[in-house]
């Protein structure tokens, strides 16, 4: 099998699996699981084969002309270089893990067939985006991912939160996609082709006429898909979907698509210094803001969601300083450990029966109940906090190193301001990341209080996947020395300065959080009394143990437990994001900022004021115009015939004599007229 065949088959297999799954799903439930797992597994093997075949060598380009369109040709093109091959492996592996995990996680779900088919379809679309060499085909995959994301986020559509979240995810990403589409058209019109290689060749040869405009338009789509400020608000809400979906779509792959596209088109962005600065500022705001927000969230999945936003900020930061190797390196390692974190969070939510950190912190022995999740999530959190020697450390250091490289002016064509912005915000975010990772770990696993309910051992399919993802989380960083050959050749090994700085601030962040936690819990683990465990600025609040959906039946499936947890969270705490937990170290650390951070810095309110309300007002105006102005004409046009009809109906009395009289009178008139005409013509 040639490399091309393999690369074509990789997206095709999950697609066929999805189609067959959708067709057969209801009638033959026995085939659903094999149809979900096997094509994805085969695709994963194929992506590995592609990566091995590519082997870090020169890029492979194959194209077939779809149809002559007259002006701009559209090709079905494959472009497989080191980036595509490695990200393809990430997509394949994570998708396989998620499919296997889902078989247990949604084992009794009546909508599992369509769910699995959509995940397969999504995998196929993502692989298409990764492997394609043509912007039009890329856009197809891009939009298919968007619609799959919509359906999957709304999987628990019985709940209000999921419905709202799926709509929001769809609308916000579409808000970015429209400028993205314009950007692609502008780019293609400028370069004369949709082929990425052709565009890049054109940029290298002649340059673009409007690089800043095109870059900013593309950036909007990237911000929407990759959840960058200011279009990131859909991602935390999208946590209303099932956990495997969060792991696959909102951590490892789909949100990575935006980063990947920028990485592929980096020369276009590099052609405009302004675009790079915008990218850097966007990355900086995203990083710091999301890290602060993550520190204040109560829902464990929302913490991870904001963390994802922040890590994506690192990637865009790396792109802003022109180092796509570092960006994709971080993308790969982040994909591994964030998928692990999400899947682990699914296990935790199932075991604890709640998704609230406040409720978990009042629950003892959670770590003993789920040892697999405990160890793997701990390591993944260490990787997230960039503690050596785990994967996150190396990739984040690569980003920081690239930023430092640019800040000190060693990178040609990259504004120093962008470098400094990314470097400083990256360091600050490293501190905050360590803080919220520590907070998450402490609240989840070091809770004191009544024993966590015993649901028995977690399904094998779920825990095994955690250990599979555990391997890259631990070891992927060691590949830093081999990866440059696959990428642009720039070194990805950590430099001393940034390593010391980054690890230092991370340790500081972790220690500060631990101190705050100790401050809130004077004797952690010793006296498991709920009333004392939350030692408190305000005792009255502290004694009030928050309620979660702990009362879930013991044999409930993980998906059902999560759905109930999501549903019961707002009634119990009055908010989907925060919880009035005075023992939360994040509350102590953030101080007055906590309230705003929990609400995502009120960005939703701003959107509501800026977009939703004007649109509603406009709709109200249109409604008024329609009802009061247009409808007046319409109903006037209706009223006149109705009155006419009523008048005519008066003649229909049912009295036959009247009819006959009218008939004869008419006949008489006609007869007289005929006679008059006849005599008139005769004379």
């Amino acid at each position: 099998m040639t490399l091309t065949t393999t690369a074509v088959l990789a997206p095709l297999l999950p697609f066929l699996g999805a189609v067959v799954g959708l067709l057969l799903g209801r009638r033959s439930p026995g085939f659903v699981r094999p149809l979900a797992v096997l094509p994805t597994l085969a695709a994963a093997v194929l992506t590995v084969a592609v990566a091995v075949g590519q082997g870090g060598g020169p890029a492979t380009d194959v194209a077939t002309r779809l149809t002559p369109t007259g002006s701009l040709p559209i090709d079905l093109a494959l472009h497989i270089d080191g980036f595509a091959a490695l990200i393809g492996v990430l997509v394949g592996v994570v998708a396989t893990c998620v499919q296997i995990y889902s078989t247990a996680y949604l084992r009794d779900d009546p909508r599992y067939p369509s769910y699995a088919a959509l995940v397969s379809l999504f995998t196929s679309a993502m692989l298409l985006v990764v492997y394609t060499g043509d912007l039009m085909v890329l856009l197809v995959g891009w939009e298919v991912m968007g619609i799959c994301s919509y359906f999957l986020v709304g999987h628990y559509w019985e709940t209000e939160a999921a419905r709202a979240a799926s709509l929001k995810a769809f609308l916000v990403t579409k808000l970015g996609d429209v400028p993205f589409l314009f950007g692609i058209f502008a780019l293609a019109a400028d370069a004369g082709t949709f082929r990425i290689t052709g565009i890049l060749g054109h940029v290298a040869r002649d340059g673009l006429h409007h690089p800043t405009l095109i870059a900013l338009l593309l950036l909007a789509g990237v911000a929407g898909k990759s959840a960058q400020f200011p279009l990131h608000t859909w991602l935390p809400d999208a946590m209303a979907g099932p956990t495997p979906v969060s792991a696959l779509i909102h951590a490892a792959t789909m949100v990575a698509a935006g980063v990947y596209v920028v990485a592929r088109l980096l020369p276009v962005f590099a052609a405009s210094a302004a675009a790079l600065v915008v990218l850097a500022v966007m990355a900086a705001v995203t990083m710091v803001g999301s890290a602060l927000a993550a520190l204040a969230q109560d829902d464990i999945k929302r913490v991870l969601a904001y963390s994802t936003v922040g890590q994506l900020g690192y990637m865009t930061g790396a792109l802003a300083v022109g180092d796509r190797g570092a960006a994709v390196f971080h993308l790969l390692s982040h994909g591994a450990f964030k998928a692990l974190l999400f899947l682990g969070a699914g296990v935790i939510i199932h075991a604890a029966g709640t998704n609230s950190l406040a409720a978990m912190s009042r629950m003892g022995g959670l770590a003993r109940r789920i040892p697999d999740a405990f160890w793997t999530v701990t390591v993944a959190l260490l990787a997230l906090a960039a503690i050596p020697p785990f994967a996150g450390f190396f990739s984040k250091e690569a980003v920081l190193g690239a930023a430092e490289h640019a800040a000190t002016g060693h990178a040609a064509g990259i504004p120093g301001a962008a470098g400094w912005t990314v470097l400083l915000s990256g360091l600050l975010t490293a501190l905050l990341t360590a803080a919220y990772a520590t907070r998450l770990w402490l609240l989840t696993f070091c809770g004191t209080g009544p024993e966590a309910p015993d649901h028995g051992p977690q399904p094998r399919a779920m825990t095994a996947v955690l250990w599979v993802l555990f391997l890259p989380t631990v070891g992927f960083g060691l590949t830093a020395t081999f990866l440059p050959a696959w990428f642009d050749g720039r070194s990805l090994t950590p430099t001393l300065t940034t390593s010391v700085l980054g690890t230092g601030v991370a340790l500081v962040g972790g220690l500060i959080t631990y101190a705050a936690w100790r401050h809130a819990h004077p004797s952690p683990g010793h006296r498991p009394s709920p009333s004392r465990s939350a030692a408190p600025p305000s005792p009255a609040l502290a004694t009030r143990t928050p309620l979660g959906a702990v009362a879930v039946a013991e044999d409930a499936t993980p998906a059902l437990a999560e759905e109930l947890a999501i549903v019961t969270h707002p009634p119990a705490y009055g908010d989907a994001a925060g919880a009035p937990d005075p023992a939360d170290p994040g509350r102590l650390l953030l101080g007055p900022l906590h309230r705003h951070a929990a609400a995502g810095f009120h960005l939703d309110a701003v959107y509501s004021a800026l977009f939703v309300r004007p649109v509603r007002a406009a709709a109200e105006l249109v409604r008024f115009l329609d009802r009061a102005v247009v409808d007046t004409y319409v109903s006037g046009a209706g009223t006149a015939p109705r009155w006419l009809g009523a008048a005519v109906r008066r003649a229909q009395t049912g009295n036959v004599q009247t009819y006959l009289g009218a008939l004869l009178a008419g006949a008489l008139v006609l007869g007289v007229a005929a006679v008059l005409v006849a005599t008139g013509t005769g004379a």
Partner: protein
Amino acid sequence: MHLAYPAVLAVLLFCTGLYGVLARRNAILVLMSVELMLNAVNLNLVAFDVWLRDTLHAGQALTLFTIAVAAAEIGIGLAIVLLVYRNRGSSDIDRLRDLAERPSGPDGAGSADAPRQPQPDTGAEATA
């Protein structure tokens, strides 16, 4: 004899019958008026037949046919009137108003219908 005499007489008889058909309330009186109209036509037929001296005597033959048809018509007509009277208890033509559209029709519920709602009722009361 001047042809205008029978012709004018036929016209006047016809119009008398016409008035009766339009103005009479009782169905049997209406049938009588119809007979008058038929006879007016017959008179015309006979008069023109005599005037034209038709060898086939088409006018007179047609008159005979008309008389036969009129007899059949009066038989059927009376049977219908009897049936109506048996069903409705009345042979008044202006109370047989089932041809009229009921005001409370499905799409007739407009304000325009309100004034004409009582109209059939008043008609029926006047008849009774």
